[in-house]
């Protein structure tokens, strides 16, 4: 055919065909998105430190293993209170003349999603220790150790942030104290800034799809799903308080033998879970985040966690019931709103 034997016609056709489709599926949708979406009105801009921290995050290729997108499927509920929407990324622009926009949505979850990590794990001590070597806190972790973001000094200056590293994880001889460099603190600031922005009131929240079907189908008896306390503990508490409940000396207090956990009156324990706690900073323990509130734990889930803590590692306290915890949680929420 004449058309196929004329290289100019053939390759122009190929170019235009491909170019047209490119316009249709890449360039036009991208331009459309740019035009249609603005950041949410209550979105907080990154602090200067966090902006620098984001650059460190980018430079070290963290996006290879950490996504920043909550998909609209039920299994992604762990990573945020709502699915991510286009507006969440609308504030991202080209970084500088050398580097492209960084939505950092990622394509692989070798590590956890970080969309909401600032709410889930805000603790400075935890994050810095974890950056120095993740296996100090999570022994199964395969994340690299970022020891080059830290220095060792025998005499820390007053403003220095010192972290408590067990001897076996020290790269150096072990004399002197491990101090976070400004880069480590900037990266920390960036991680702490990663929080899902609440949608403005009245906006419908996009739904999570592919919900898990309830097992209660026949019979009609409203069996409450039994929550796995050990699994919930692993997801929400274990990275600080450790699988053996002994915490980490000088950083996170033990739950094994803890008077709060063993107390027959669950009031204080529920309060700490829902509101966080910073009463033992003088002893060297970091402040505890409000895990229950941040992670949207239901009273039933909190009960399961509490009962796991109260009956494991040699602890032998009275088990609590969902009903009494629900009352306490409702009371705390009520106090929170009246404040």
């Amino acid at each position, binding site marked *: 055919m004449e058309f196929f034997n004329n290289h100019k016609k053939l390759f122009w056709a190929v170019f235009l065909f491909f170019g047209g489709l490119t316009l249709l599926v890449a360039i036009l949708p991208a331009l459309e998105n740019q035009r249609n979406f603005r950041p949410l009105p209550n979105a907080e801009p990154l602090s200067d430190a966090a902006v620098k921290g984001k650059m460190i995050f980018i430079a070290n290729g963290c996006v290879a293993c950490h996504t920043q997108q909550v998909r609209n499927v039920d299994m992604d509920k762990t990573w945020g209170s709502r699915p991510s929407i286009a507006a969440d990324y609308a504030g991202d622009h080209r970084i500088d003349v050398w580097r492209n926009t960084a939505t950092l949505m*990622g394509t692989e979850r070798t590590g956890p999603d970080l969309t909401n990590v600032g709410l889930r794990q805000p603790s400075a001590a935890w994050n810095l220790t974890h950056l120095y070597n993740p296996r100090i806190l999570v022994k199964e972790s395969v994340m690299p150790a970022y020891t080059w973001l830290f220095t060792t000094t025998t005499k820390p200056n007053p403003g220095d942030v010192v972290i408590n590293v067990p001897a076996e994880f020290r790269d150096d001889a072990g004399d002197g104290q491990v101090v976070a460099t400004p880069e480590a603190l900037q990266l920390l600031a960036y991680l702490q800034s990663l929080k899902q922005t609440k949608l403005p009131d009245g906006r419908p929240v996009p739904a999570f799809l592919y919900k898990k079907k309830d097992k209660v189908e026949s019979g009609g008896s409203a069996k409450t799903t039994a929550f796995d306390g050990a699994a919930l503990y692993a997801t929400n508490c274990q990275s600080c308080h450790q699988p053996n409940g002994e915490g980490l000396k000088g950083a996170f207090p033990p739950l094994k033998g803890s008077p709060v956990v063993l107390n027959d009156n669950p009031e204080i324990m529920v309060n700490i879970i829902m509101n966080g706690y910073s009463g033992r900073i003088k002893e060297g323990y970091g402040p505890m985040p409000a895990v229950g509130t941040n992670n949207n734990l239901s009273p039933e889930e909190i009960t399961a966690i509490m009962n796991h803590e109260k009956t494991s590692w040699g602890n032998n306290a009275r088990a609590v019931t969902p009903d009494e915890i629900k009352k306490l949680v409702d009371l705390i929420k009520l106090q929170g709103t009246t404040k």
Partner: protein
Amino acid sequence: MCYSLAIIHLLFSAMLGKAFFSVHSVAGWTLILFFIILILLLATLYLYFRTSEIRSLAPGRKGEMDKRQLDEYISTLDKQQIDRYLENGKPSPGGKEPGVTRLAFAPFLLGITPGSFWGETGVLIMLVLLLLPVLAGVVVVIFKVGNILRQEREKQRLTEAGRFSEGLSTLSPAERETLLTQRRDALGYSLTQRELIGELAPEDEKGLLSNITSHAALPVVPVKKRAVKRPPIDPALARLVLAYIGCATFWLVVGTTVGEYLGIKFVAPDADHVSWLSFGRLRPVHTNMVFWGWASLGMLGLGYYIVPRVGNTPLASLRKGWYSLWLINAAVLFGSLCLMGGINNAGGEYREYIWPVMALFALALMITLINFLQTIGRRKPKEIYISNWYIVAAIIFGLVIVTVGYLPFWQDGLGETIVQGYYMHQAVGMWFMMFTLGIVYYFLPQQLNRPIYSYSLGILAFWTQILFYTVIGTHHFIFSSIPWWLQTFAIVGSVGMIIPVAAGTTNFILTFKGGWHKLSSSYTLPFFLVGVVFYFTGSMQGTAEAFRTTNLFWHFTDFTVAHSHLTMYGIISFFLWAGMYAVVPRLTGKEPPQILVGTHFWMALIGLLFYTVPLMYGGTLKGLLWIAGKPFIEGVTLMEPFWLWRAIGGSLMWLAHLFFAYNLYKMTAATRIKQKDYGILQQP
């Protein structure tokens, strides 16, 4: 095995996701009904033909045998039978008297025509239930009919033997004797084995024979054919092609050394605490180096050989070829150094090089495009051979992709992600796959010494690949905040990919048809075959991964890593090796050590399977674990053994590359034999 696993998962999830087929729906039951009726119809047809065969057998032939028939039967006797007859004077018809059983069956199967009012699921189920025993009955009938047919044949054989015997006895003994003895002597005749070769010693005056084994011994591996001598190539072009292949091999070895180290880091995360060797920085070094360094340079090198050859004209400019080579090498070198130094383009796979680095690569593509187009413009044949369609199109696409991916105007916010999906998948499919297909369309027919099966299939695959592949980029971001319609579009395009992939695979396999015996005597064809197999399975796996339901358990897991290795390694790298082993001996006149080519092949193949199968299996388990809502860290512990297997498979692959590099060395530099040492052998 894994693909069937994938397909089972696919079907299973499709049923869960109330997709297109369900046993709870009218459509589902109608489908089952349809198939049963279809089987019944086919069975009826089969039975019809078998029974008419019985009918034709039944009457048989009667009466006395004439001479011609007798001769015909004698010619079927063997030597032993004749001997026995001559001794005993009786034919020995063997076999027992068959017991005749007759089965009358009524064609009750016909007449099943469901009316339109039978649309209710219940009715359809009932119909299916009724038809199932009928189906079983048909099976029984088929066996019975077969049996009758066999018995009838046996019976007929016996009567014929009786008639034959009678016929023989009507002859006079002398006549019979001569007839049979003649036949026996004829059967006993054998050649002296020297009729054709004569009594002279063999001589090869025109040098037509090669591959002569003078000292036969049990070989460790079968000896493969050596490359056929071809018209000489311009030595300057040969140097350019070899330089491309050499540089590509260098980046392959370095790039996979980095990859191997990354695989080890999954097993030993504290292997080092050096910033520029940390996982996040080295990962893009590995991926980009094997992409732009190994695969791209390898493809272009083979392209520089193919494009002038199929145009039957010299390359437009050798100098431009060298410029491209230097530019791409510079891009990979600077890009890798930047990445290790923490300078990257901010996320996005295969788009990690910053634009000044990628501009070098784009410039090289531009120069090559001009060079190739000028060469094609000066071609001698009127037609443009299909290899050149694919190769030039791939370079045009590569340029468009890099331009769209790096221009800043449409990259704010989610725009970046939309472009990223497009960029990374087009780079894979429209640059690497397209170019490699062009290479296969040249080398596969050449190595098989037969034309490509169908030119039209190649053209169909060409246009449908552009149509479908271009739109599937966003299937990497299913369930993300990218517009839902764009995601759906990408899924539909992924399904459409069945057309070009099936067309291409069919074309290659049918080109192999009739030439399969060449597989065992060639050291390039096995590479092609593996490439073709992975072309089909790897690409179809991509389609399977694109669905919404499969995204639930495969997305974000190590399954994706396995998929990218199955395709970029199983397809692209294997095809490139095939092409390189085909072309380098032609350029240098030196062969690689065959046993080491075999070692390279098997280590790469087994390594790839050790790498990918555990990752696919573990990745699926991890996805299911996430769906079950288990703590994230359990997924990490779950993967530990699979990551170990990956490291083992990766090590095998890496070793295979060392063998390949050595083979390339043997085919080029190392074989320059000094005239002095060789002098004695060359004495007349």
